[in-house]
């Protein structure tokens, strides 16, 4: 029985991994299409990100003569971190990792991927990579405390830092979930989703202008399959972060039983929610311009204060 359920978990893990990894470029395409339509442009087809990846994979790679094995390792490791992160999500009921799907571990995986990307940015010895790296670490430093407080706020209400338990506990609470604490934490987390996915007004994923870019700056030296892996990993991270928001703050409808139709239904429901948030992200990009770099701390301080109040308000207002 345990053997069978072990196989079941394994199959579920592979299915979820494959689903998220394959869907990730589509979400990217959806956001781009939303932006194009809002600007009255036709825009690239929704499948364009897949075509881009295929193109990069087939190209010969050009590597800087200054770079070391860090540059070679980073794309695989970053892809590995984001691929592993997909197994933490309780998209169809329980997360494939079960008891080990810990929120803080998930954040640490993001941090590991970020550190290697930053090192790769410094590796080639050019100025653009260093600029992107330096800015990326600044954003990370100001975002991290808020991120941990959001995690703390949901963990303290659910009594665990285990992601799938938090989601299933929240899902059973129905609309009673909508406490001031929940709304404040959701607001803070929303700002952090924008930060972590590197979207406007924090970073602009569509630019290669040295004055504005953060994430693209670090990838400037990459080409060929390494670039493909890194871009793919970025889009996977986007889906993971959005799904995280969805399972923490909009958990309704997550299947609480393990039977097959419920799981499939849950998976599609999750996909729908992720799509809605993605469209919303595209919409936000239409409304706000990019912030100056030094306005970001204020933006993230707002998130920090909201998350701080989210933790304390659950003890003040019951």
């Amino acid at each position: 029985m345990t053997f069978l359920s072990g196989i079941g978990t394994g199959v579920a893990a592979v299915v979820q991994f494959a689903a998220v990894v394959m869907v990730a470029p589509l979400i990217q395409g959806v956001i781009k299409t939303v932006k194009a339509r809002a600007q009255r442009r036709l825009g690239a087809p929704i499948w364009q990100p897949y075509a881009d990846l295929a193109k990069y994979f087939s190209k010969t790679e050009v590597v800087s003569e200054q770079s070391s094995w860090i540059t070679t390792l980073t794309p695989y490791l970053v892809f590995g971190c984001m691929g592993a992160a997909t197994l933490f999500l309780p998209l169809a009921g329980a997360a494939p990792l079960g008891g080990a799907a810990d929120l803080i571990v998930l954040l640490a995986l993001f941090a590991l991927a970020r550190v290697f990307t930053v090192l790769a940015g410094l590796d080639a010895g050019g100025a653009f990579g260093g600029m992107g790296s330096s800015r990326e670490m600044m954003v990370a430093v100001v975002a991290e405390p808020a991120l941990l407080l959001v995690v703390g706020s949901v963990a303290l209400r659910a009594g665990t830092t285990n992601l799938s338990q938090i989601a299933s506990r929240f899902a059973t609470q129905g609309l009673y979930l909508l406490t001031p604490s929940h709304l404040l934490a959701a607001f803070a987390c929303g700002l952090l989703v924008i930060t972590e996915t590197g979207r406007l007004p924090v970073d602009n994923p569509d630019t290669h202008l040295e004055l504005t870019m953060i994430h693209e700056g670090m990838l400037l030296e990459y080409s060929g399959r390494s670039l493909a892996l890194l871009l793919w990993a970025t889009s996977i991270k986007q889906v993971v972060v959005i799904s995280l928001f969805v399972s923490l703050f909009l958990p309704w409808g997550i299947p609480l039983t393990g039977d097959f139709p419920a799981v499939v239904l849950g998976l599609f429901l999750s996909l729908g929610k992720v799509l809605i948030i993605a469209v919303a992200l595209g919409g936000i990009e239409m409304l706000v311009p990019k912030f100056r770099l030094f306005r970001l701390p204020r933006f993230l301080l707002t998130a920090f204060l909201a998350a701080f109040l989210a933790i304390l308000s659950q003890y003040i207002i019951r």
Partner: protein
Amino acid sequence: MSNLFFVLLPATLLCYTLGGIVAAVCIQRPYQAVIWGYGLATLASCLGVVTACLFLLHPQPWRFLLFTAIDPIGARFELLLDPLAAFFILIISLGGILASIYAIGSSQEDLERHKNVGLLTVGYNLFFLTMFAVVLANNAYLFLVAWEGMSLVSYFLVSFNHEAEDVRRAGLLYLIMTHVGTACLLGAFLLFFSATGEHLSFDAFRAGGGLNVWSRNLIFLLAVIGFGTKAGLMPMHFWLPHAHPVAPSHISALMSGVMIKTALYGLVRISFDLLSGVGLQATGYPSSGLAFQRVIPPLWWGTLLLSVGLISAVFGVLYALMETDLKRLLAFSSIENMGIICLGLGAALLFQALPLPFANGGLASLALFAAFFHLLNHTLFKSTLFLGAGAVLHATSTRNLEQLGGLLKRMPWTGLFFLVGSLAIAGLPPFNGFVSEWLTYQTLLAVVASAPDLWLKGLGTLALGGLALTGALAATTFVKAFGIGFLAQPRSEAAAKAHEVHWTMRLGMGGGAVLTATVGVASGAILTLLTPTLEQWTGTGSTQLLASYPGWSLHISGTILAQADGNLFLPVLLLPLGVASLGWLIVRWLVGPPQRDVDESWACGVQLKPSMAYTSIAFVKPLRRVFQLVLQPYRETKVSYLVKPYFVERIEYRSGIKSLLASGVIHALRRRIFSLASLIRVVQNGSLRLYLGYILVVLVLLLLFA
């Protein structure tokens, strides 16, 4: 089994002694002194690790009577091996193995410079003996003598390169500050002494008879100041970033990795053991007929340690980030890590103070586990990093990050080990630093969940955010240290000519890196090893509360703490590597073997120069601006002209940060101390006859009044 310890522990101490003696005998033949001195120290440290591990797996209190002195107050000079002491012996010995192996190679350079390496080796072995004595002492007098010995020996080790002015100044500052700390400890022990009816034995202190609330609080406060000074807790930290970096690198590794831990040992010994009496009961020591009473620590003890830890962690790492001197950066980061450990210790004291039946057992053992685990981890990765910095210094003769660069290609092994240490200290999986920081996060969540009032909940929340900030800043700091120091192109002649170091030095660093990785993945084994130490203060079986629930995912609900089916945590840590290699295989299979062209980096079409790469100062510029309220950055530009305003002769530019503390408080303090010292000068004229006269006067007065 106990017979084994009778052999092992004295054998360990004997080996250090022998190492010292042999080095002293061979002092005229420094090569032999180095080989024998450090070789015996390595052997002794290995024996120490074996002793500590065996003891922790089969704990039993083991007393060793040093000698019975004939003194009027009946003090017996006892050495006591209990789980806490055994854990710290493990720490000292682990650091000792790494540093001793490394030192064999690194001393070769000093040999060429005709330095007195033999003497350094003697002091090195003596340093270990005093540290062992500190953690084994079961008597206030012996403890203070060992403590003072440790401080003095380490002062001499710090001053090894005494030709340089800054080394002498740093040494003096260290000597002064360590004695400020010792004075506080003396005060604490004197309070114990008078309250327990003039006993000096720790057993008598444990019974705690006669201590009222005020003297208890005062003792705790003095211990925090005294040990905090040695541990580099803010605001008593300012000597540490001066003293630790100027020592030879293996000594720096020992001081930052090991010696400052003995201060935390003292803090734990006093606040958890001597002031609470729990240790006596839990391990079933013969209480020597003294009345025993368990005392619950007041709430503010934990609150104080938590606050001090939070301040040290955040500010320590902020100053580390701004540093361009590699070894000073590491020293500041030690302050940060001491802060993180203090968060755990403070939380443990807090849990013990709470009126929850469950909390002071299970939660306190969780908090202590976080603190002790981080202590062990910090020893491993900080030793690795300091030894790595020493290797860089050895190869390039500079500690300035701006002068380095491109070292990963020239020193591949050193670079790899430094990277492992950096990732671990930044709290990234799968290394050990992540596991202990994760435990600290869980501890702080438990603090917020179980704190009795809103203020404490607020403090816990702040600590949670502060720890996250610390983690992100530490990641930035070590990304900077590795990225600027080891990647891109060399920015100086010396860095371009760097070479890989002697194999013993690589072995020392490599050992540290391997242990760092192993301990991270084998965290379950560390819990087993630490269980006796934890349960000594939190009650037998309290760590079972950690292990009886299902993965290392803790479940916190109010006061209930639980945890999950054991080993799941390990694969999770290695999962990214697994997915990465899977990805590599799939890409290779689908797309084929990689086709790569090598070309120069993009520099807008001009030739790439080393000066185009980001420097250490430039890398942290955005953060310097974000935290300008704390760091107070300044820059001054002085321009002198040949013909104003067209022909500039020279431009002087200087920039930096101002330390909030050092600028104001320290200078005021120093002036006050110097003016006091000049008052005392009146009675000191250096004449021997005058001093003999003083002795005579004192003798006559004693005879008159005694």
